[in-house]
């Protein structure tokens, strides 16, 4: 892709302290986010996708976290900045949309005040200008009667409206990068469809890049340009969205796609991925981390120190086990479009 790189994540490692030791929840992740690009991070809970996003925002408690690597955003390494310097960037250049709109909003503040709060911080505007801008924002995120909603409190709004307010806060200073952590998980499907439409529209209009974190592969299929599949802190497969859904290679990607019941087609049995994502302090640190969950594939089929390798232009896969992988229970190939009409 010939797009300019906006955020370059290099060899990022985020470790949390458990007892006296640090354990990496994000391990050696390198990923470039281009301008106006939507990159999705997918994986089960505990795969490190949220830990990765929060480290970009600098939201991990410093006394319990160790962050190594580099995060180049428009040329500056975010990890080398002081809190004061970081505060000038987050909220302004990088906006974040949180999962649960009810807990992300302050119940004691009107909607208008909450949106203006970040403008106070980052932009020099008069009260009248701020209000005008807030109303424009509310209208932009599709809230009817923005002049009235401006004075409302979060509890007076429905879930979908609240999430629109959260989005309005995130885009208040027209950020170049939006981090959306499970933006539609707490919402009903019809509302979810509206929010997806809204995010796509904003991305088109404002030329924003989006890091979309979700476990819902349907949302990924509808929004993402590229997809990074994460397992146990590592990216195991990285490719454009069409490749991930139609020609996935890594066993984890293929298993995930097979385990989801679809409303478009009907499968008799769902594929079950054996075992669980191991807890942080029990993660195998050597070899292929997915090996325990595909035990029927011989140990000799895995690499001893698997690296993310480019197998075709733009398509990256970790470990060679994908070349030998098959589903034990049936003839599924893993990936939509096969077998199903």
């Amino acid at each position, binding site marked *: 892709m010939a797009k300019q790189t906006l955020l370059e994540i290099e060899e990022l490692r985020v470790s949390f302290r458990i007892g006296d030791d640090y354990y990496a929840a994000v391990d050696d992740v390198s990923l470039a986010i281009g301008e106006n690009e939507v990159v999705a991070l997918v994986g089960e809970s505990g795969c490190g996708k949220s830990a990765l996003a929060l480290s970009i925002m600098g939201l991990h408690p410093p006394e319990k976290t160790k962050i190594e690597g580099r995060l180049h955003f428009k040329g500056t390494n975010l990890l080398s900045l002081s809190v004061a310097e970081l505060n000038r960037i987050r909220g302004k250049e990088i906006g974040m949309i949180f999962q649960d709109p009810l807990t992300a909003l302050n119940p004691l503040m009107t909607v208008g005040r909450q949106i203006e709060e970040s403008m106070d911080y980052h932009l020099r505007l008069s009260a009248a200008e701020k209000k005008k801008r807030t109303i424009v924002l509310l209208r932009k995120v599709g809230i009817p009667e923005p002049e009235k909603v401006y004075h409302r409190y979060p509890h007076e709004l429905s879930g979908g409206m609240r999430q629109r307010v959260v989005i309005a806060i995130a885009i208040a200073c027209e950020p170049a990068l939006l981090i959306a952590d499970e933006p539609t998980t707490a919402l009903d499907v019809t509302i979810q469809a509206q929010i997806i439409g809204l995010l796509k529209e904003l991305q088109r209009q404002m030329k924003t890049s989006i890091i979309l974190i979700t476990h819902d592969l349907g949302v990924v299929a509808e929004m993402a340009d590229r997809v990074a599949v994460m397992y146990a802190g590592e990216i195991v497969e990285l490719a454009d969205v069409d490749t991930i859904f139609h020609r996935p290679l890594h066993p984890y990607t293929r298993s995930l796609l097979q385990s989801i*019941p679809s409303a478009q087609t009907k499968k008799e049995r769902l594929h079950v991925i054996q075992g669980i994502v191991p807890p942080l302090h029990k993660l195998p640190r050597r070899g292929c981390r997915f090996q325990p969950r595909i035990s029927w594939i011989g140990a000799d089929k895995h690499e001893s120190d698997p690296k993310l390798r480019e197998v075709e232009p733009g398509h990256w896969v970790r470990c060679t086990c994908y070349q030998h992988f098959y589903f034990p229970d049936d003839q599924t190939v893993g990936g939509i479009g096969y077998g199903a009409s």
Partner: protein
Amino acid sequence: MALLNVNHLKVYYPVRGGFFRRVVDHVRAVDDVSFTLNKGETYGLVGESGCGKTTTGRAIIGLIRATAGEVLFEGTDLTKLRRREFHPYRKDIQMIFQDPYSSLNPRKRVLDIVAEPLRNFERLSPQEERQKVQYVLERVGLSAESIYKYPHEFSGGQRQRIGIARALTLNPKLIIADEPVSALDVSVQAQVLNFMKEIQQEYGLTYLFISHDLGIIRHMCDRIGIMYRGRLVEEGTSEEIFTNPQHIYTKRLLSAIPNADPRERGRQEALRREVEKEYEQSYSRYFDANGRAHPLKPISPTHSVAIP
């Protein structure tokens, strides 16, 4: 054969206000809902939050009092029974709850959790009880030693299976599963859904499956009822609902599901716009002046739609 007939079920909550806090209006959480569950089938109740699907399930099992209507279980109207008379039926109808983290008492051992229904209905010696508990636990894929563990020692999927084991101990006829997998990760979700299908075959269970996830509903259910604002707007076989939806709300709901094929993006967006337009134009055809859906009308032996 019908195992359960729900006839004109209503659950209203009074809204008080004004002088002397009189009842000024009602919230119609469940507003005249009727459907039938046949033995051995899975019936899906679908709708968005607040549509009354959970309230319907809870009214059937007696956790919420029905304002009006009948719940006929093998011919007996459960809503008319007194507490004592209801007791034997509780054995036949069990519930699987949504959140396996809050539906298991953290201070009880698995043995006590799973044996609780047994202790309410059967007089067993401690040995017999333990044997029975171990038997159902093994059925749900947990080891016999787990009886002395506490809920926090299990993963989310295992906990949900403890919840299922508890529901199975009394050999129920009907299981009401209220969003049984929405708190679980996709891979664990697949495991629990497969397992629920297996035990259904084995025990000849009937499921009332309540969910907002249409992918899961399509996977699990033989017949489906779509609820909107306390009323059923469409009912039919899984095939009929998904391939030939008739009510505008059903169409809207189906078009909103994310399509798991990135190549369909454009088509899905166009479909959504089209349905949205139809929704705006034909709203008054499908809903009366108060915004209530019309009563269901059969359009084929198995397919009914709420149209005037």
